[in-house]
């Protein structure tokens, strides 16, 4: 079959809502799009461990500490799972991580904002995980099988995280004046970046149309953003917190995306430091595994 016929059959399968599996024929552009999107997603989980990890050692109660530790560990697990799903497209996790460390790969810009207070941990759970769920639930029906299956599992845990974040905010909102102030300031800080997580307005979104045709994406950026606002505003009212008024400043979005957010350099530097200072450990593990293989060969 020639490429045009294969492409036609591929699109017919997509249109029939069939799942594409790793061994199936797929257009190069589809493969590249998935590798880009899935690896960005994996990187986001890994980089996302940093702003929240910032409060593990200072969580205000042991119960909150345990919940936060488990949450950050879940994110690491999501990262591992998503790197694994991306590897089904013919790339290696090591190569993807090298791209991240080289500054050549993107991850969700939201993690380039800092977490100066405990309330930021609540706001991240409530708003950032909330926005992530809005984005990710449609991905559970994404045309690429391994990605769709990964998202089913991830969405379950994310909705748990979202509730935990809201629970932090609720405790603060019902707390002392200082705690309420902390909660309001965190909402003020995270509201706009959370809305930006849905990506640029539909008119400016360069990947959207093709991704919709491939059923990697099912709803437009603006549609998902509108749903998130509808969902979240009553929750803020219940907390007695004021949702910031005004318009999204898209120049801020562009700036952070271009590497000029408050924490871009710090986040990548932290990942590089972990990678570099772990080199001798990874080398030791490889050397040990080689020795075991030679021993087994000698024994045969």
């Amino acid at each position, binding site marked *: 079959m020639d490429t045009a016929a294969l492409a036609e059959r591929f699109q017919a399968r997509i249109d029939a809502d069939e799942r594409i599996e790793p061994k199936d024929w797929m257009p190069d552009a589809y493969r590249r799009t998935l590798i880009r999107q899935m690896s960005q997603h994996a990187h986001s989980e890994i980089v996302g461990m940093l702003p929240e990890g910032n409060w*593990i*050692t200072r969580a205000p*109660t*042991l119960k909150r500490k345990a919940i936060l*530790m488990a949450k*950050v560990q879940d994110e690491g697990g999501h990262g591992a799972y998503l790197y694994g799903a991306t590897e089904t497209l013919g790339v290696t996790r090591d190569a993807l991580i090298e791209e991240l460390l080289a500054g050549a790969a993107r991850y969700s810009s939201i993690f380039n904002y800092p977490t100066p207070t405990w309330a930021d941990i609540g706001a991240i759970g409530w708003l950032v995980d909330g926005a992530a769920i809005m984005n990710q639930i449609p991905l559970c029906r994404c045309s690429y099988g391994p990605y769709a299956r990964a998202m089913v599992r991830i969405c379950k845990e994310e909705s748990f995280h979202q509730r935990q974040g809201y629970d932090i905010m609720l*405790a603060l909102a019902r707390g002392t004046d200082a705690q309420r102030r902390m909660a309001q300031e965190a909402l003020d800080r995270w509201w706009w970046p959370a809305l930006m997580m849905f990506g640029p307005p539909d008119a400016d979104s360069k990947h959207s149309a093709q991704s919709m045709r491939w059923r990697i994406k099912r709803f437009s950026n603006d549609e998902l953003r509108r749903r998130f606002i509808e969902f979240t505003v009553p929750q803020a009212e219940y907390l007695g917190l004021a949702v910031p008024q005004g318009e999204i400043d898209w120049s801020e979005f562009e700036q952070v995306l271009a590497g000029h957010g408050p924490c871009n350099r710090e986040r990548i530097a932290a990942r590089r430091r*972990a990678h570099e*200072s772990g080199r001798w450990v990874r*080398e030791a593990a490889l050397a040990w595994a080689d020795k075991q293989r030679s021993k087994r060969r000698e024994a045969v």
Partner: protein
Amino acid sequence: MSAAGIDDPHGAYVLRLADSNLVLAQRLGEWIGHAPALEEDLGLANTALDLLGQARLLLTHAGDLEGRGRDEDALAFLREERDYRNVALVEQPNGDFGDTIVRQFLYDAWQVELYGRLGASRDRQLAAIADKALKESNYHLRFSAGWVVRLGDGTPESHERVQGSLDRLWPWTVELCEPDDIDHAMLAAGVGVDLAAVRAGWDRRVDRTLSEATLVRPADHPWRWFGKRGQHGEHLGRLLAEMQSLHRAHPGAQW
């Protein structure tokens, strides 16, 4: 007085176990997001979570034994370092991955021996906690011992580094198996364990893994240092200052 330690030997005995787990969980928490590879990040976080869970059960039990209404958070966040009763090994800084793994291995091997015997304690609550914790500690020990072997018998660099970790941390292991008045009293009461038996089991486990890792067991150190009696070095104060800062900044607040 609400910020003091626990005087009753039974409560003090449980508090020691709780504090060691809590301080080590806090140390491991510093690693999350920064480990040499994703799997190690998950492994260290897993151990940290288990130790924190054990610490919470033990702190609650110690508070109940004391009977003055102190819960896990009052004991964790409102005691000064002089009233912390963790073994000094666990307050040692993380250092590099090798330091962290050796510290973990020495502690895990001790916990497995300890919990295995505490299951027979006359304190049924403590025995129940130990039974549950033993399963977790066995898993932690597989992770840490596995890494001691890979680092010890890996590259010349890793061998040298991890032998250095072992040499530096070894002096802090002396108190693990050296009984004091509280240990003697709790053994006599059927609550605590026989540390001589723990010592024999710990020696066997440590020697077996070190031999597999081609590492040399350091000579026992002549001086004695007892974190479990409140003797701490310079590191615990900072660890607690960080851990307790937010809780203490808002007295009486609910979170």
